[in-house]
């Protein structure tokens, strides 16, 4: 499953990381090196093995339906690059 420059471009877009065109090929090579190393996992027999998503074997805790948070607009906006009238402000979004 080798990666080419086009794949790097696509994945960089998925990850929203601007990548100059001349970086695509070197990145592809670098990632291929890592992926090739990763592919040694193919040696492992995982027939019938459940994927392990967590180290915690307990079920999910549930909380009561009580309002305990919110009403902190100042905190919510305290680090905003731009805000106005209680809103976050971002460049125009075209839907």
């Amino acid at each position, binding site marked *: 499953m080798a990666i080419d420059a086009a794949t790097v471009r696509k994945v960089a877009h998925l990850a929203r990381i601007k990548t100059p065109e001349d970086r695509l090929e070197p990145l592809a090579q670098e990632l291929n090196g890592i992926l090739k190393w990763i592919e040694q996992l193919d040696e492992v027999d995982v027939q019938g093995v459940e994927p392990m998503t967590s180290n915690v074997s307990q079920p999910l805790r549930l909380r009561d339906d009580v309002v305990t948070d919110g009403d902190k607009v100042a905190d919510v906006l305290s680090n905003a690059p731009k805000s106005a009238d209680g809103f976050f402000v*971002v460049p125009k979004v075209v839907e």
Partner: protein
Amino acid sequence: MTDLTKLTLADAVDGLKAKTFSSEELTQAFLTNIEASNPTLNAYVEVTADKALEQARASDARLAKGEGGALEGAPLGIKDLFCTEGVQTTAGSNMLRGFVPPYESTVTANLWRDGAVMLGKLNMDEFAMGSSNETSAFGPVKNPWKSKGSNADLTPGGSSGGSASAVAADLCLAATASDTGGSIRQPAAFTGTVGIKPTYGRASRYGMVAFASSLDQAGPIAKTVKDSALLLNSMCSFDAKDSTSLDIPTPDWTQSVGQSVKGLRIGVPKEYVLDGMPAEIQKLWEQGVEWLKAAGCEIVEISLPHTKYALPTYYIVAPAEASSNLARYDGMRFGHRAEEFTSLDDLYATSRAEGFGKEVQRRLTIGAYVLSAGFYDAYYVKALKVRRRIAQDFDNVWGQVDAILTPSTPSAAFAIGDKQIDPLTMYLNDVFTVTTNLAGLPGISVPAGLSADGLPLGLQVIGKALDEATVFQVAGALEDAAGFVAKPDRWW
């Protein structure tokens, strides 16, 4: 008067209680040392002197009344991954430069509850991605240790490089750290300090900047095994705000340190013998086995057959989770926002390209790739299955052994710049530590000797889930046997 900064945490706490010195004096001593040392070592990204002295005076007032918690008046360093209310928290990234959380992480809140004093925020690899502290946006931390006969600056390891360096150079009594693949234990090993990653779920992740949620775990770096137990006592707690936090009591682990290890069965996994591993690492490991044998332990050779797959598994799971965890850094609500952009998408991509360093970008790209359509099963699901195999390896040996002994790292500290060419070489640093993250087990690194170059080397003790007590017990025995007292010669 003796240099207060050289005290252990336990002795300092006792001294404070006995009013041999005040917290303000102790804190001031550290601030003075930091002021002198930090421009060279770069361990702290921010020193909160005013806050520290204020906390110290409050502690002194409590101590005067005979009150105070388990860490009352003890000045600590905080890895800049823990959100601290009103104090900049950057996770070593330009993305979060200037970010001031309006909340406190549960781990640090526990420390303040117990009376600790915050000296400042400690440098780290960007978003904890790195093994040398070189990925930090604030520049690399320097290891106070140097190789015999060389003036080259060494890395303190990573990602908790600032924590390890600060503890080793007496810039705090002890420090908080975090470990996703070895980020507590590897820097501890590189700096002659003790670092423990507890069982996953012991320490709350609430307010800790996430790298890989299923692997991240907070823990201390300290000067002694007992100090690490004392600090871990405070750091751990059940926290309803973290769904993966375990609802179980936190024992007093200091009680385990110094207990006899007689009759304990210690596993030595044959798969941890690596091709090309330096002889001195092998020798240290054998020495550790001898010490424990002498202390009355039974040594059992064990097999953890999937060990060699742990690193590749980790380099799928961790980047995958990170690629999602770090999606929130988009320049919309906090963090860096690019000034020039052509569209909304371009704003995202430019802000993130400007805000994230190279290694973070690399891992986010890998993470997005292994989760993307067509590769999810082949990479991500496969890795999760191998992860279970790795965890099962441990499950299979716990009937035979009570703890496992391994080296902490495959080498001693290396020079800054040495391993930057090839990411894979860098990744190999975590070869002995990453298995416990994947399996959620506790692991501690104890300084056990010096390399031929005079650099500290560590041994790792791995325990059963929730059995930190045995880990501390064995670590204490190793510490006693090793009698490691070496300190770096002050050159900074």
